[in-house]
């Protein structure tokens, strides 16, 4: 059946799959958000260790999802991979840098003779949760605001801005999206910790986390509203059937109207996040992470679908409209997409064992006495 799929269908399937991986990554940034909460919610060594150890058991999933996101884009949309990573050099390099320093920080923070000291490793975690997530948001923002590149006849990239991608962070829209993601990650981080830690005899700690979820949600709101309103009002990039790219007023608003399902995903996602914050902050629930996680995934899907579907170039160039990348002109060959689709049949199996192990490992909440052992993070 897969062998008979149309090329265009395969391209759409792969945009959906990349969107799913990207959206799952946004959900999993609860690890990064949780890192940044450390300073505010943990008031002593035990609480500190509980936060780090709780997040430290999941950081690899987030990290691996980011790697998979890169690999999937490389395989399915190599022209995007080449253009964006080679062009917007500094954005990606700095994002990666923050993930490099994060990767060792859990393991090394509490180990004796660790050279840099616990505070430095905790600062690495903070940098990852703030700068890393902010720049990821700015990079995603360029899907709507455009980038500065020109492709020649051989698809070689010339980046026309000397900041090599860092200019993305100086757009109010991109910056707002980045800040929204930072605060949303903190909301998710708080909810995850509430779900994962055993708060016996630590009511204060729990209360601080609940308060942090609410405050960070309130901080996220203005940025979210700015992004949403701008998205509906802004001129967007559009591609016609001949492949010619032009600017169209309210393009992304029109996309949402033309794809009610995507509009539904966006609204459902937002409602779920709000509901999750409500039950966490006011109802004493620890299940917020699941609602907010699903909500974040749905919002992420809506963002990626709005950027890539309905004749929209997902990686537009404002330096040269006709260099813009669409899921059609940026994709791999039909053969590769077909082969990769067979491979993707394994994804549900992978998700199943991740879920199984997660449930098995988290069946018992993480208790204070467990983080006193010298072998923990």
């Amino acid at each position, binding site marked *: 059946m897969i062998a008979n799929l149309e090329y265009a269908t395969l391209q759409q399937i792969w945009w959906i799959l990349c969107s799913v991986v990207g959206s799952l990554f946004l959900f999993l940034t609860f690890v990064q958000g949780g890192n940044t909460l450390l300073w505010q919610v943990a008031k002593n060594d035990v609480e500190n260790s509980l936060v780090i150890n709780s997040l430290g*058991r999941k950081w690899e*999933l987030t*990290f*691996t999802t*980011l*790697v*998979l996101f*890169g*690999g*999937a884009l*490389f*395989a399915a949309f*190599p*022209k995007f*991979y*080449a*253009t*964006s*990573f*080679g*062009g917007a*050099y*500094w954005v*990606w*390099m700095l994002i*990666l840098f923050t*993930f*490099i*320093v994060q*990767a*060792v920080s859990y*393991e*090394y923070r509490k*180990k*004796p*003779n*660790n*050279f*840099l000291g616990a505070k430095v490793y905790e600062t690495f975690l903070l940098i990852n949760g703030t700068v890393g997530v902010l720049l990821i948001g700015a990079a995603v923002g360029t899907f709507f605001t455009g980038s500065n590149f020109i492709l020649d*006849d051989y*698809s*070689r*990239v010339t*980046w026309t801005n000397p900041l*090599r991608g860092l200019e993305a962070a100086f757009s109010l829209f991109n910056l707002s999206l980045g800040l929204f993601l930072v605060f949303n990650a903190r909301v998710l981080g708080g909810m995850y910790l509430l779900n994962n830690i055993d708060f016996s005899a630590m009511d204060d700690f729990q209360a601080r986390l609940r308060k942090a979820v609410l405050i960070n949600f309130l901080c996220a709101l203005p940025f979210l509203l700015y992004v949403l309103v701008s998205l509906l009002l802004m001129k967007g990039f559009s591609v016609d059937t001949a492949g010619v790219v032009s600017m169209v007023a309210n393009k992304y608003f029109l996309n949402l109207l033309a794809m009610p399902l995507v509009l539904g995903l966006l609204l459902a996602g937002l409602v779920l996040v709000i509901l999750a914050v409500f039950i966490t902050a006011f109802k004493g629930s620890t299940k917020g992470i699941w609602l907010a996680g699903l909500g974040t995934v749905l919002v992420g899907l809506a963002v990626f679908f709005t950027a890539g579907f309905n004749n929209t170039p997902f990686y537009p160039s404002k330096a040269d409209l006709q260099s813009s990348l669409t899921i059609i002109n940026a994709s*791999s*060959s039909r*053969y*590769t997409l077909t*082969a*990769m689709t067979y*491979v993707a049949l*394994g994804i549900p199996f992978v998700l199943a064992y*991740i879920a199984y*192990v997660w449930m*098995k*490992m988290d*069946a018992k909440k993480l208790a204070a006495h467990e983080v006193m052992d010298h*072998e*923990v993070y």
Partner: protein
Amino acid sequence: MVDIDLSLVNWSRAQFALTAMYHWIFVPLTLGLSFLCAMFESIYVRTGNEKWKAITRFWMTLFGINFAIGVATGIILEFEFGTNWSNYSWMVGDIFGAPLAVEGIFAFFLEATFFAVMFFGWNRVSKGFHLFSTWMVAIGSNLSALWILVANAWMQYPTGMAFNPETARFEMENFWAVLFSPVAMSKFTHATSSGFVLASLFVVTVSSWYLLKGRHLEMAKKSIIVASVFGLLGSVYVAFTGDEAAFEDAQHQPMKLAAYEGLYKGEKNAGLVALGMINSDKKPGDAQSPFLFEIKVPGLLSLLANREPGSFVPGIDDLVYGNKEQKVMGVAEKMKIGQQAVADLAAFKQARKDKNDVAASAALTRFTANKEYLGYGYLSTPEEAVPPVSTSFYSFHIMVMLGTLFPVMFIAYLFFTVKGNIAEQRWLLPLGVISFFLGQVAGQMGWAVAEVGRQPWAIQGLMPVKVATTNIAVGHVQATFFMFLGVFTLLLIAEIKIMLKQISIGPEGM
């Protein structure tokens, strides 16, 4: 063709080499130590002996310290294909990206998911499930290596693909040919088994140090038994797969083989250099001797390269300037055909732009006839096709010499440990203590042979590195080079300090 900034090419290469070499300090240890941990734990589960549990947990702690930094240095490698080699990424992303995505889906998640159980699951899951998780981490780590090595092998021996002139890029035609290419298989088996050897050396090094200090004697001896057996088997396999790798080089990358053997004038019944010193003034085509001195084993190179005694092995001069008698086409001739292919491709693109179907079809016919040597069209001189000979030669020979030493050492360790007097072998233990560092040298040298030896190609014969780079000012690459050099060095120092501390603390209760 765009103007090429050679300093950009070299800095991009330097950055990739830096990250790859740092990554390879940690990865082989992960590959092998994961299996050793799984073996130690299997013995614990079978025997129920708590001492084996302590042994397992001790090595697992060291594994975890190393694992984190291996992951940290790995992420940058994947993305550097895009950031620094963007022309490459577009030209071959269709083929090269697929193994990376499969790696992410099937291997990395296996590692990442079960890693948490391996470290934090001792009191949360059953003994059996914990053991299963440890094995899954070992299998996942080694599966990760499979896919990236498949991708690397494809660059050394591009197969299962065709050039599409419409998009001016290579596209995959046969996934299985890419996966099961003989070069991919020999690369995977050679690299992973070298990891098994390195991890075994690590266990021997730490255990020997304990024996010399008179500490943790039981743990050290028990660990040595398992590591020596694993290391010996790994060493034999490394030798076997190394022989296969050299054979594949002779078939698909004869210039690489000629460079690491310092062979300039091809010959029948060619000898293998056992020991030698390269004459660094020697240039292709001149009359100077390639060696200041050399000791050769007669006829062995012909046998290893072609599996046929007395067969002809082409040298650098034959490959650069051609050898009609032996039907070896020279680089100059290939360059002419390649330049024609580059021009035909440009003519084809122009005709397509002008919507001139007749001209496009004619250009395409010409291109198809010449495309086999497309990459040579970008070379400036025939001599550019020669990789750095000294680096290739010394890297190869140091690797082989060390690779020969390790199995002998494992046999000695096994012999004396079984005999029960290993702790008294004061001549052997210091060698054991430094053996891990020798193993590291061998591993790094191995990659130097593979990667320096294939220069100037990013993809053998099809794309030189100078065409593969990102179009970016060299200052950006220099800045990131030093950024990574700084952070990797800091993290390496931290890793070593933490490791040493954990080793000095030793296992609990033994």
